[in-house]
């Protein structure tokens, strides 16, 4: 019995000791987009190795989850930085402000390409147009002046140049920031290119409803939402020779053994074509800093400065090596961090 009593006393002591400890968190806490996670973890590791600050903790979970946690409030129990693969929404800024997070610094890390890849031994998916994707996976299409449910079942139905293979796509789920870029740069673009947008408007929809219709994805199992990571998309593609998936450029470059990439709008994805803006499907990546935590949690500002230093985020740095397209306006971002310029001051 004595042993047990001592054990529980120890446990209670440990719990109460931690109460005192909780007042001084010494590492930076980050959460958010799984697309930004590899970049953030590379920087976090290097930050720990090259400075005297402890290595930050980087959690994943998606842009929306990260920003929701970021907006929970100010204090030790909340995260300092949120990673996002899309800009913060006005509604999120509002939620933040309601919870006392009214000073947010927005940092653009660089650009990331979104690529369309399929099994290496699968059908010859080598060149896509945005309109192909729209006609393949939109919920409704205009056919002969009437709006009907999407009748296409093979890629050849959509475009005679594509292989006669069943349509099966794996696209990012709605909680991923990638989904928004996919909808706007591929589906909406394809909708306009194919003339479907006009047809929608002619059928009596207003502009917003037509856009909505352009970006509505069919739900008959032809297009599958992937809520997990790219590894899940990869696993689905490996078990479905006809599957085509949406990946980040860096993920594809890490898996050239099992994936082949298709051009979009005639341009092959690479860091060069994305940097020049030729490749149509790319998006900026961001992280958001809680200004109230600068000077309270050690290393928040230093982490941001280290992240955006020329040696790290610039051309030839470890982030570019991994697949990030460096931001040409890096110097502006650096001074923005230096001056702690918040979004409302911009």
């Amino acid at each position, binding site marked *: 019995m004595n042993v047990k009593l001592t054990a529980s006393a120890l446990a209670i002591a440990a719990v109460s000791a931690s109460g005192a400890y909780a007042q001084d968190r010494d590492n930076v806490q980050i959460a958010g987009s799984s697309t930004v996670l590899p970049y953030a973890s590379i920087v976090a590791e290097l930050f720990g190795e*090259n400075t005297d600050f402890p290595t930050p903790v980087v959690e994943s979970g998606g842009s929306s989850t990260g920003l929701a946690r970021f907006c929970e409030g100010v204090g030790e129990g909340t995260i300092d930085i949120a990673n996002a693969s899309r800009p913060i929404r006005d509604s999120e800024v509002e939620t933040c402000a309601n919870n006392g997070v009214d000073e947010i610094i927005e940092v653009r890390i660089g650009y990331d390409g979104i690529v369309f890849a399929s099994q290496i031994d699968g059908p010859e998916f080598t060149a896509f147009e945005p309109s192909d994707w729209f006609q393949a996976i939109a919920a409704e299409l205009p056919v002969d002046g009437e709006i009907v449910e999407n009748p296409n079942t093979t890629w050849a139905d959509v475009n005679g140049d594509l292989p006669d293979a069943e349509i099966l796509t794996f696209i990012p789920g709605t909680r991923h920031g990638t989904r928004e870029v996919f909808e706007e740069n591929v589906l909406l673009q394809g909708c306009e290119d194919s003339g479907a947008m006009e047809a929608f408007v002619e059928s009596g929809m207003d502009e917003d409803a037509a856009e909505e219709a352009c970006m509505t994805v069919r739900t008959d199992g032809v297009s599958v939402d992937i809520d997990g990571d790219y590894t899940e998309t990869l696993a689905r593609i490996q078990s479905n020779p006809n599957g085509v998936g949406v990946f980040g450029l860096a993920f594809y470059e*890490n898996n050239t053994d099992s994936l082949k990439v298709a051009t979009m709008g005639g341009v092959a994805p690479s860091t060069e074509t994305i940097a020049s803006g030729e490749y149509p499907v790319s998006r900026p990546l961001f992280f958001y800093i809680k200004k109230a935590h600068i000077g309270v949690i050690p290393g928040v500002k230093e982490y941001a400065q280290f992240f955006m230093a020329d040696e790290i985020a610039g051309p030839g740095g470890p982030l570019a090596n991994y697949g990030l397209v460096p931001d040409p306006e890096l110097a502006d971002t650096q001074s923005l961090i230096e001056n702690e310029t918040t979004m409302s001051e911009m």
Partner: protein
Amino acid sequence: MTDATNNPGASGPTARKHTSLLTIDVNTRKRNRAEARFRSYGIAAIAIGLSFLVMLVWSILSSGLPAFTRTVVEIELTVTQEEYAAAEDQLFKTRAYQDLLVGSLAAELGEDVDPESVERIIGSPGAMLRNYYTANEDQLGEAVTFKLPTSSRTDGYFKGRITREGQERSTFLTPEDLDLADEMKENGIITSEFNWQFLTGTEASDDNPVAAGIGASVVGSFYMMAVVLILSLPIGVAASIYLEEFAPKNRFTDIIEVNISNLAAVPSIVFGILGLAFFIQFAGLPRSAPLVGGLVLTLMTLPTIIISTRAALRAVPPSIRAAALGVGASKMQSVFHHVLPLAMPGILTGTIIGLAQALGETAPLLLIGMVGFVALKYPDGVAEGLLDSNSAMPAQIYTWASRADQIFYEKAWGGIIVLLVFLLTMNIVAIVLRRRFERRW
């Protein structure tokens, strides 16, 4: 007699057929066949179960064993005092060390070797060099031989994880680099060895994936299990002894009982939400700390321990209690001197089952910040072990499984092997303890 006869057509003993014990009649044969069939079903069920087990073990071992070897490159390097000072003066210090290494190796390999090619082969070992030289400043200016892991892709090439064809479209390692790597292998510069770093190492980013190891998360899991054991065993056993031996049977204890049974079936993520709301946001405990993980898992394990402990206490024959009370023991003496020791094996089994369940749990850890890029150093002591950010084995495996670089796939399976060994050790301890406590009556 008549009511024992099932067949209404048979009237009395005269109508009975004469049978012999020596010749087997139709009915007996039928029954024998049914028994044989039943046995074969049983054997088939076991065979199916075993074949699944073999498949599982085979797939784990075949995917995970490569994680226990690594490809290393042996390099002799001399860093001068000036080079050291220049490197330490930069923002990106580890990069400077890496450049020194690449330059030295490229020069050693020959004039026409492209340093960038060498860099792609050896990856990013700059941090290891920096750690060495900052700890051993007396070695500056001396020639030191390093054995450093190669880049994940070079490692993958020599392990057959990646192919030459696949690399033709890759920017990370070109087929020409592979020619150079083959040459280095022939010259004995590149060799293969047992990967201790996988067992002792900590988490690593995609910039240096070869360095990733499970060690820190084993420590994290260990601290969590210690918290779970220290809290849930005494609380669980005390609760069950009271409920089983002392508590009055009334509506109130009934409600408690129903609640405990229900809690045992609550999905583990719910405990994670509770942990986030109570331990982190209300009590102010640090995020990502094994202490919080242990507390959350304690909540999850308690119902399991209480239920199994109560079952063990109930299994002790009432005669033992009656005898103890009969010779004049108090209620408490009868419980602690006689009932509890006899129930010990059952309690231990329940505890180990609860711990094993807690050890493999990822979902609640997701909410308290233990899943992600955590744990880049070992804790310095017990307090740090409980409070410093750390991961746990299943969380680490989960994180690796979603990484882009294929080496993490291998590491995730290797991590599963380590997790299974940890579980096996726990079970063996339980069996040994149970044997020692086991008593027959």
